[in-house]
């Protein structure tokens, strides 16, 4: 190797970057060439000088604390922004979640419904159905003045006080508080629960059917074994009133598409018509015929099942 070649490679040789073959040739040349060896010593002398270079730098104790605080803060803010952007982005593609608001609203509705049921039950107890109340409130009792005003004069004038049979039936009913309560309980608790009332119309229908049911039970309980005439004045007037109501409710049910209600009311109507057309002193066979129909058709059960 010539000196020029050696000096050209010397810097790479000192840096440890010369190829292995070149490095071997430089090493061999440095042994034999004093000038090149002196140049090499200059390089190594400089390296020693640079190695002694002391910047007198120390890493301050607080530096890591500052770095750590900044990195932690950055990580937290990044997590917040990532979470925020993710939520915003996810919100674009997700259905609205009602979560707590929805469950709270449901809870309020349930409580309100429960309070409503309690209120209506209490209201019912304070104003019981006419058939379950005292003499004045009993539907089997003579009609009030208001009712009389609406009745035809012929009927009104021929209306006697309550018949002994009706009184008996009424008395028998009023003397059976447990049974009546049970019926009322069935009506209120199962068949005509207020919770089942979806609107005023349904409530009117239920109330109407309840009264009709009482009327039919009253008819069914009439003792018609004898061939004597039976005083059905009250039943007749009640039936007329219910008949008018029934026609209106049946039409409403038909218009509203409430076919079960319409069907029940339609089944009830012939009985109301028959009863309404009875004379005040109805022949026992006529009454019996109606009673038999009531029992055979099980109209009372149908009314209850509604």
């Amino acid at each position: 190797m010539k000196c020029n070649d050696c000096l050209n490679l010397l810097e790479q040789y000192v840096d440890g970057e010369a190829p292995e073959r070149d490095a071997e040739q430089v090493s061999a040349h440095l042994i034999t060439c004093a000038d090149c060896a002196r140049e090499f010593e200059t390089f190594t002398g400089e390296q020693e000088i640079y190695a002694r270079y002391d910047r007198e730098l120390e890493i301050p104790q607080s530096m890591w604390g500052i770095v750590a605080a900044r990195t932690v803060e950055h990580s937290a803010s990044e997590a917040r922004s990532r979470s925020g952007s993710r939520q915003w982005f996810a919100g674009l593609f997700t259905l609205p979640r009602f979560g707590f608001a929805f469950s709270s609203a449901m809870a309020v509705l349930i409580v309100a419904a429960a309070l409503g049921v309690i209120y209506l039950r209490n209201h019912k107890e304070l104003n019981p159905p006419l058939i379950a109340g005292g003499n004045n409130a009993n539907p089997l009792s003579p009609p009030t003045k208001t009712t009389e005003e609406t009745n035809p004069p012929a009927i009104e004038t021929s209306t006697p006080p309550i018949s002994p049979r009706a009184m008996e039936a009424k008395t028998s009913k009023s003397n059976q508080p447990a049974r009546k309560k049970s019926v009322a309980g069935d009506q209120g608790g199962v068949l005509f629960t207020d919770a089942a009332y979806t609107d005023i119309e349904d409530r009117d229908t239920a109330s109407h059917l309840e009264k009709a049911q009482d009327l039919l039970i009253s008819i069914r309980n009439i003792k018609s074994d004898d061939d004597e005439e039976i005083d059905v004045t009250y039943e007749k007037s009640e039936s007329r009133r219910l008949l008018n109501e029934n026609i209106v409710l049946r039409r409403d049910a038909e218009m509203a598409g409430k076919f079960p209600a319409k069907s029940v009311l339609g089944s009830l109507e012939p009985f109301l018509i028959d009863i309404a057309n009875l004379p005040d002193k109805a022949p026992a066979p006529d009454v019996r015929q109606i009673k038999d129909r009531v029992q055979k058709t099980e109209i009372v059960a149908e009314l209850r099942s509604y």
Partner: protein
Amino acid sequence: MKRLAQELSLEGQPGAFAGSLMNSSADLVARACQGDQEAFRLIFERYSRPIISFIYDLVGDRELAEDLTQETFVRAHRGLKALREGAKLSTWLFGIAKNVARESLRSRMRHQQRVELDDAAVLDLSDRGPAPVDQLLDRELNVVIRRSLAALDDDKRVVFTLKIFHQCSYEEIAEITGFSIPKLKTDLHRARVEMRRRIGPYVRV
């Protein structure tokens, strides 16, 4: 020689406890990427000294070097996941440090401030009492080297610092600086010539 070994080695930092030496850089990076702050602390302990030295050589200001070292590690933490597999952590950190220092130098240039070495404290030897000749010589030499480095242009200073003080290979310097191998060889050669002209008398001594 002990100090020399410490200066030249990036992996064996003084003060870094034995446990940290058992963690490879790849392991530390992987753990730090998972949010392990302790792993990042070990990276900091291992590389903070060479990084602050490198930055100080570039900017010539002690306090600024500390601030820029902090910034380097903060940026490194943010970009740790971007460190490609197989890349050398020290090379990557030096690259960040170089960018941070350069940004700072440009900012200072815009503000019409001259980059000067803060060697006043080093030159102030009077209050340190009698010192051995070698110690005085070392202090003087430190000032000379510092001034000589400051006299180099930016590219030469970066290349020279990485090669002479941090023992980086040409490939690593090329990766850190983005220079081609021929360019960095040329810059390194010219930097050596300039530095030799300044420190030559001390070499002969």
